[in-house]
C-alpha cells in the first residue's frame, strides 16, 4: 500500500517536472541578457528593464501586441458576457425543439477546432466585403467566447428560485428593471466565471486571430510570437513577459481555487 502511494507521488512529480520544464526554462533564461534562448551570459535584469521601458514609451511592437491582446480580450469578453447571459436566460426558458436547436448551435463553436472557426469567419468577412482589422478580430473572439458564458450561466439559472423574476414584475419592475436589479445579481457568479473564461480564451487564441486580422499589421501576442519565431530569432523580451504572465495566471488560479473552497465550506 505504501509502495503504491510512493509510486503514485513519483509519477505525478515526474509529470509535473516535464510539464513545467520548458516554462521554468524560459523563466530562468529571462534573467540573462543573451538574445537566443539557451544562452547564459550572466545574471541580468536588462530584459525586464527593456520590457518595462518599452511599455512606458509604447515603443516596441511587442508592447503594442500586448496592448492589442488585452484590448481585444476585454472588449470581446464584455460583449460575450452580456450576450451570453441574455441568451442563457432565453435558452433556460425554452423547451423541446427550440431549446435543442439553440443548444446545438451554441455548441458548434466549442466543438470546432479554431482553424475552422478562423477560416470560416475569414470567408464570411470576405463575402461581406468587411475589411479585416480590430472589428473583425473582436467579432471573431466574441464568437468563440460566448458559448462558454452560456455554459457558465445556465447552471446558475437552475439553482435560482424560478419565481424570482416574476416576483420582481409583480412588485412593479419592468422587465428591464427586473433584469438589472434581480436577475443579474443572482447570476453574478456565473457571469463572472464566464467572463474570466472568455478573457482567458481570448488571450490564448492564435488561429482565429491569425485568419481574421487582415493585413493592416494588427498583432496580438500569439501572432507576434508566431511571426517572430518564423523569422528565426526570438525577441528576447518575450522571456520576461512570459514569466510575468505565468506568475499572474498562477496567482489568479490559486485565488479562484481558494474562493471556491471557501464557498464549499460555507455551504
Amino acid at each position: 500500500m505504501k509502495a503504491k502511494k510512493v509510486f503514485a507521488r513519483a509519477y505525478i512529480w515526474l509529470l509535473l517536472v516535464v510539464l513545467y520544464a520548458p516554462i521554468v526554462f524560459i523563466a530562468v533564461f529571462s534573467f540573462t541578457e543573451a538574445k537566443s534562448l539557451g544562452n547564459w551570459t550572466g545574471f541580468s535584469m536588462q530584459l525586464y528593464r527593456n520590457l518595462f521601458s518599452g511599455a512606458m514609451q509604447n515603443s516596441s511592437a511587442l508592447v503594442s501586441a500586448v496592448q492589442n491582446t488585452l484590448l481585444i480580450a476585454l472588449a470581446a469578453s464584455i460583449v460575450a458576457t452580456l450576450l451570453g447571459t441574455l441568451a442563457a436566460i432565453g435558452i433556460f426558458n425554452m423547451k423541446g425543439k427550440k431549446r435543442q436547436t439553440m443548444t446545438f448551435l451554441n455548441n458548434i463553436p466549442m466543438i470546432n477546432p479554431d482553424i475552422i472557426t478562423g477560416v470560416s469567419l475569414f470567408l464570411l468577412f470576405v463575402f461581406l466585403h468587411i475589411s479585416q482589422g480590430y472589428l473583425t478580430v473582436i467579432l471573431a473572439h466574441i464568437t468563440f467566447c460566448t458559448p462558454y458564458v452560456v455554459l457558465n450561466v445556465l447552471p446558475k439559472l437552475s439553482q435560482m428560485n424560478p419565481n424570482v423574476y416574476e416576483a420582481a414584475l409583480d412588485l412593479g419592475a419592468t422587465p428591464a428593471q427586473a433584469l438589472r436589479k434581480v436577475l443579474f445579481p443572482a447570476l453574478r457568479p456565473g457571469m463572472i466565471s464566464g467572463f474570466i473564461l472568455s478573457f482567458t480564451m481570448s488571450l490564448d487564441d492564435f488561429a482565429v486571430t491569425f485568419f481574421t486580422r487582415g493585413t493592416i499589421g494588427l498583432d496580438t501576442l500569439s501572432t507576434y510570437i508566431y511571426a517572430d519565431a518564423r523569422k528565426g530569432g526570438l525577441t528576447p523580451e518575450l522571456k520576461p513577459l512570459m514569466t510575468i504572465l505565468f506568475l499572474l495566471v498562477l496567482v489568479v488560479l490559486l485565488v479562484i481555487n481558494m474562493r471556491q473552497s471557501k464557498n464549499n465550506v460555507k455551504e
Partner: protein
Amino acid sequence: MNKRTGWALPYFIFLVLFVVLPLLLIVVYALQDGSGHFTLANLGKFFTDRDSLSTFALSIEVAIENTVLCILIGYPAAYILADKNLNRSAVTVVLFILPMWINALMRTLATAELFTMAGIQLGKGTLLFGMCYDYLPFMIYPIYNQLNKMDKSYAEAAQDLGATPREVFRKVTLPLSMPGVWSGVMMVFMPTVSTFAISEFLTNNKIKLFGTIIQENINNSMWNYGAALSLVMLIIIAITTMLQKEEPDES
C-alpha cells in the same frame, strides 16, 4: 408562454450570422471554382493529390497516436489526482491545469528550444512528444472531473460483492469514467489534426500537418481549395461528434 425566450434572439441572430453562415460559406467555396461556378474539382484535387492525401493520413495518424499517448499518460495521472488516498492537495490539481492557460505557442517554442539544446533532432519523435506535452492537460482535466464526480458507493458496492481492487477498477471505475475519457478525446483528437503552428515549430518545418496546408492555401488566396480541405475536416468533426452522441457527457 414565457416572453423571456425572446432574450435569446440577439444571440440566435448572432449565431446564424457568425457560425452557421460561415460554415455554409466553407461548403460553398469548397464547391466552387475561381469564377463562382459549381464544381467538384476542389474535392477531387484533394482525393487525387498525393501530397494532400499523405499529409491528411499523417495528420490522422499523429492525432490518433497523440490521443492514445495522452490517454496512457493522462489517465493514471487523473486517477491519482482524484484518489483521495493518493492525493489530497488541490494545489497539485491546479498545477496540472495551469499550463492550459499559458500561451501554447510559447510553451511549444520553449520545448523545441530545449530539444535543440539537448541535441535531439527535431522530427516526428519531437513532434509527438511536443503534441502530447501540449494537449496532456486537456486529457487529464475531464477525466479527473469525471472521476471526482463519480459516486464512491459504486466502488464500495463492488467490493462488498467480492471484487478485488483490480476488478473494481476494470469493471466499475473504468467504464464509469468513459464519458470523461470521451471528453478528453474530443478535446485532443480534432485539435491535433488541425494544428499548424505547433507542428512547424516542433519539426523545424520538416513535417507538415493538415492544418498547415489549409493555412498555406488560404494565405495564398487559394480559397476554394483551402475551403475544400476545411470541408474534409468538418466532415470528420461531424463523424466524431455523432460517435460521441452515443456517449453523452456533461463537461
